[in-house]
């Protein structure tokens, strides 16, 4: 496991600057920023294009040959920047940018959930007494050995459709994937609590809760941020995958995974329709992964926290 990294008050202000100083970090930051901006500005962007994600364009489809776009290259035109969806004629660009919202929302929500549960369990195990630690560590190990993809599928199939899907996805992803975070938090807490400043605080009679908040938590920021940054793309892929299996958000809400699953029947005749969501998801995942890697390097330049 990792060593505790640079003291907190120093690491915080320099992280962004250090990231920006690296060329890779700069690109990753810009791309991730752009993706978030696109998601936020989805209504503006689609208005600019003059389309919306739910309007059908029957006239642009060739019904006799299965409902694919009439025009070549997936029906890309000045009116439809990235073409139209087969069988509905909905605008691909509009669905893509609105799909970014779901993707980021679920990835963000799930990561936040994992972070919260992981912090709580990890801190309690790291600071609690022997029994609490043993119990919580066993529990974490147990969750780690769950076949989580299988459980997610089962859960998504069981919970009624009336339950809002994005929230459900967040809850399931958070509830099943928090264990690695908890492990890291526990290990880091063990290291930190042996430090002089924690011992000093304890001597002064500070409560465990106060120690956790004031002394340990700040020291956890670096390793936890590093790890969390890499959870975002993982969650993004998980959401897309579950939507791909037809278990994610329900139509007509646009989502990338769903576009990909439609694309499986269309990739032979309308490859453009596969490539657009596939490459978008790919760029997002790569950008977030790169950002995570860059954060790790910026926080821990010597590669000790590995």
């Amino acid at each position, binding site marked *: 496991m990792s060593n505790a990294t640079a003291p907190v008050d120093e690491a915080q202000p320099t992280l962004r600057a250090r990231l920006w100083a690296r060329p890779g970090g700069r690109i990753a930051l810009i791309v991730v920023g752009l993706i978030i901006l696109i998601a936020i500005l989805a209504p503006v962007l689609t208005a600019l294009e003059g389309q919306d994600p739910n309007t059908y364009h029957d006239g642009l489809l060739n019904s006799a040959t299965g409902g694919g776009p009439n025009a070549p290259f997936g029906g890309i035109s000045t009116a439809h920047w990235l073409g139209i969806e087969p069988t509905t004629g909905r605008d691909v660009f509009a669905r893509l940018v609105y799909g970014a919202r779901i993707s980021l929302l679920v990835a963000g929500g799930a990561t936040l959930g994992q972070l919260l549960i992981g912090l709580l369990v990890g801190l309690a195990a790291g600071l609690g007494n022997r029994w609490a630690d043993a119990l919580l560590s066993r529990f974490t*190990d*147990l969750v780690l*050995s*769950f*076949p989580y*993809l*299988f*459980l997610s*599928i*089962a*859960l*998504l*199939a*069981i*919970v*009624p459709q009336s339950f809002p899907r994005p929230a459900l996805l967040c809850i399931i992803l958070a509830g099943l994937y928090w264990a690695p975070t908890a492990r890291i938090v526990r290990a880091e807490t063990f290291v930190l609590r042996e430090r002089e400043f924690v011992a000093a605080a304890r001597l002064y009679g500070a409560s465990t809760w106060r120690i956790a908040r004031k002394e340990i938590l700040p020291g956890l920021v670096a390793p936890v941020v590093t790890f969390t940054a890499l959870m975002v*793309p993982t969650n993004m*892929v998980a959401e*897309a*995958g579950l939507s*791909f*299996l*037809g278990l994610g958000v329900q139509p007509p809400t646009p989502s990338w995974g769903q576009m*990909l699953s439609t*694309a*499986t029947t269309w*990739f*032979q005749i309308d*490859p453009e329709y*596969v490539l657009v969501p*596939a490459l978008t*998801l*790919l760029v997002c*995942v*790569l950008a977030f*992964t790169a950002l995570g890697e860059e954060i790790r390097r910026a926080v821990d330049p010597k590669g000790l926290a*590995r």
Partner: protein
Amino acid sequence: MTAFLLRRLLSAVAVLLIVAAVVYALFYLMPGDPASLACGKRCNAAELAQVRQTMGLDRPVYAQFWTFISSIFVGHGYDNGVGTVWCSAPCLGYSFQSDLPVTQLLTQALPVDVSLVSGAAVLWLSLGVGLGLFAALRPNGLRDKVTTFVGLTFGSIPIFILALLLLLIFCVWFQILPFPTFVPITQNAGQWFENMLLPWFAIALTFAGNYLRLTRAGVLESLGQDHIRTLRAYGYTERRVVTRHAVRGALPTLATMAALDIGGVLAGAVFTESMFGFPGLGKLMVDSASNIDLPVITGVTLLASFLIIVANTAADLLYAVLDPRVRIQ
């Protein structure tokens, strides 16, 4: 060693019991009624009651759970109305939707995953370790950077996209491979191989990046160590130092990783199987989840947990055997 194994065995059993209980509990929160699903579309009240009783759904949940657990060890007879079907141990229940013991469905699906993992593991290990060594020969050189970048990029492509792209390239654009369909090796080894190629590559390419990184890191780490410096001083070539000696430093991590990944794929490659329509455990899971076939879902999930736990234990053992610094107690 024995004590270690015993402890692992005990905790594995505990984990499996808990997973079984969790899955079982979940299904009692679900909206659908297993009895009416098993009975079919047009089922009158009397028929439904009969099916419910046959399935044992009229008994309390804990009693059903106990039957489930005990039948794993001693088997269980299922009264399907006219006769009794004996489901011998290890019995994981009986699927009323397909009128088959769950164990049989699992054993039918498992060969697909064994096929998938056997070829894919060979591929990802040779690709990952090979490229890792290749990169480590000239650390931080151009070829190191390119190899690492390519490996990591493939590693972060979601497998369902990679599979789709492979299909697009090899089956649609170049048409050099058939659209994969699972052919058992016992039926036709040549066709089996040909059809497995795309799924193998889809899995291997996503995994290889990790092995590349681990190999490279392990090699570079040991290159800094004393015995390597000695070897260099003797005048061994860099290639020989790296491929024969430094690679040993990466071995424990690689073996651990491989054990975990093999266990994971064996437990069901959900996306690969769905994408290519291979009837393995992953597809069985997706199908039975959409039918809410409770006994099958429980069975697949349990088997998956079991395989993952076995893989975890194997990984720990491998690490201990390969890394002399670790002592099992």
